[in-house]
């Protein structure tokens, strides 16, 4: 009797999980289908026919080669077309640069700060720490307008300086790194100190190598956030050649809004790198990403 009850619970758990897995994946699956559907195709008689991606029920088959999507043979031509009609390659470069520079800044400066606050004594340390803690409650919309005006007065609009400079550090990373450094035993540093190593040497030779898990978690978190960032690049870039992928998508939407196939190709292309990064670093995400935030 008891066993039966348990089994029912397990079945319900499976049903819930499978249904939600389908819900999670379906939008990606559907947009990928559309992205591989050509704009038109030649039917048996050789006549060119337009494709209706809104047809219902959709005639989709994965058992043909190439698979049939909405009556047409699947192809990657939309992906190539995206590079033709927009400076998509340039946008990829911009986004990679933006994300890499910002991530590098965070890893360096947040961990520098984390080290100072975890290990070194300096005047006003508590004041700064409390101030930083208080800034966590400030929403982005509040600082946005003055930040924008600062960049205008520096003449940094439409430059990488403007894009990157205000984003190079953050208190979230500082606290993450500080917390990690505090958990490292002091003995090793003291040994290094006796050997006459300076603070910088101790940091790079001893502290940083030990902080690899925290550095990786922070790095992925920042890289993803920056890659996906939309509002700041929207404000900072005015030339099409300076756009990042998210801003490019907005431009794309306003110029080609009826060309679903192209739009979905552009969307899928900017999403895949994040999924790849996520899958390769999944352990850091699922184990540290969400749970460190809740650690008491």
């Amino acid at each position, binding site marked *: 009797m008891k066993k039966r009850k348990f089994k029912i619970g*397990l079945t319900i758990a499976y049903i819930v999980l499978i249904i939600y897995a389908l819900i999670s994946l379906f939008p*990606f699956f559907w947009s990928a289908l559309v992205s591989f559907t050509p704009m038109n195709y030649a039917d048996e008689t050789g006549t060119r026919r337009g494709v209706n991606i809104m047809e219902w029920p959709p005639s989709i088959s994965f058992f043909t080669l190439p698979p049939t999507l909405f009556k047409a043979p699947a192809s990657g031509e939309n992906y190539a077309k995206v590079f033709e009609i927009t400076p998509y390659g340039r946008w990829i470069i911009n986004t990679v640069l933006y994300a890499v520079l910002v991530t590098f800044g965070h890893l360096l400066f947040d961990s520098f700060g984390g080290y100072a606050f975890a290990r070194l004594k300096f005047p006003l*340390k508590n004041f700064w720490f409390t101030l930083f803690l208080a800034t966590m409650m400030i*929403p*982005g919309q509040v600082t946005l307008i003055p930040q924008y005006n*600062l960049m205008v007065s520096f003449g940094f609009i439409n430059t990488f300086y403007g894009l990157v400079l205000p984003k190079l550090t953050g208190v979230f990373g500082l606290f993450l790194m500080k917390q990690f450094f505090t958990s490292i035993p002091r003995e090793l540093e003291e040994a290094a100190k006796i050997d006459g190593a300076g603070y910088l040497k101790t940091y790079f030779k001893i502290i940083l190598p030990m902080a690899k898990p925290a550095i990786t978690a922070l790095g992925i978190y920042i890289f993803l956030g920056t890659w996906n960032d939309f509002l700041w690049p929207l404000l900072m870039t005015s030339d099409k050649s300076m756009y990042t992928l998210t801003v490019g998508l907005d431009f794309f939407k306003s110029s080609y809004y009826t060309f679903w196939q192209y739009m*979905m190709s552009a969307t899928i292309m900017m999403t895949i790198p994040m999924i790849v990064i996520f899958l390769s670093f999944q352990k850091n995400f699922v184990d540290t990403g969400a749970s460190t935030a*809740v650690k008491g």
Partner: protein
Amino acid sequence: MKMKAKTREAVAGYLFSSPIIISILLFTIYPVFAVFYYSFTDFQPTESQKFETSFNPEEALSINLNVLLDFDDVTYEDVKEWFVLEDFIKYDLGVKLNDEQYESLVKNLDQEKLLRDFVDRKLNVEMPAKDFFKKYMRTGSEKFTRYIAEWVGLDNFTEMFSDQYFWISLKNAVIFSLVVVPVQTFLALLLAVAANARIRGRKFFKLVFFIPSITSSAAISMIFMLIYSKQGVLNKLLGLNIDWLNNPNTALGAIMLMNIWTTAGYFMITFLAGLQSIPTSLFEAADIDGASYGKKLFKIIIPLLKPQISFVVIMGIIGCMQVFDQIYFLIKNLRNITIAFYIYKNAFEFQRMGYASAIAVVLFAIILALSLLQKKFFKSESYF
């Protein structure tokens, strides 16, 4: 000797922390003060930038004097006679001035210097208007080189009270939080409890549920634009014919659903980590006592997950109050905008940064109050 080591440590401390200190002071602390200041002014970015626009004084003058650009035999006496100061300032400069600025220019423009430089052919260079004023005004040029927004006191705040779009956008943000937060918290908890059962493929489900939250909101917006379109797959599956995003009655709901889809999986991971830290002995003891599943849920799981639940709720509310990207991409109707979007709209489309700053101050107060409330209720749990 000991003193020296201490100083050395203090210097090192500041060297290590100075990048982040400077950055936070410049890009977070200063902006907070600035936004408060702006909120009492009618700061307009177009005003602040209009004297930055470059022009060619020689061209402007030759239009005024009605002489060709390749003049040779024009003397200072000639141009002095032909020059019409008021027209030059009003039309030929190409900069829109207010009355005060106009008066000041009429009074203080050094005509002789300007016209002599013109005759000497020194003016054929592009220069920003503010540099021109600096060079050719006897006094008072600082009013043109530095934009000082007009102080309007509490006008922006009183305007907000009668601005229907402010109320609509605030109301929408509140509705957003009130619907999205409970639903996503419940859903995340449900998924976590299900994934915590003795099932196979837990890792697979965790990965799949996490994917929406690592996708950019821009990309998600495009994908849902396809799914929500009138001919789209959602209507086909449901047998309906609704223009989800363009119908003001359904648009906000559609965005909320999309938001829940994006974040529920992420918060599920938070709950799952919490659930897995609950010792199994507690459940075994409950089993021996013959406790039902509902009892276990309310007596063990929910009380022990309090820190996670408070985290998910407060992060959810803060996130919802700031929803922007999805609205920017998908909403065309002003009836369905949120407060974050209305701030953007005022600052960067209507060119009313003073008013936008005042709304931002209100949003700040709301989020601050929520954070403090949360601190009060969940004193024991801190995240850092």
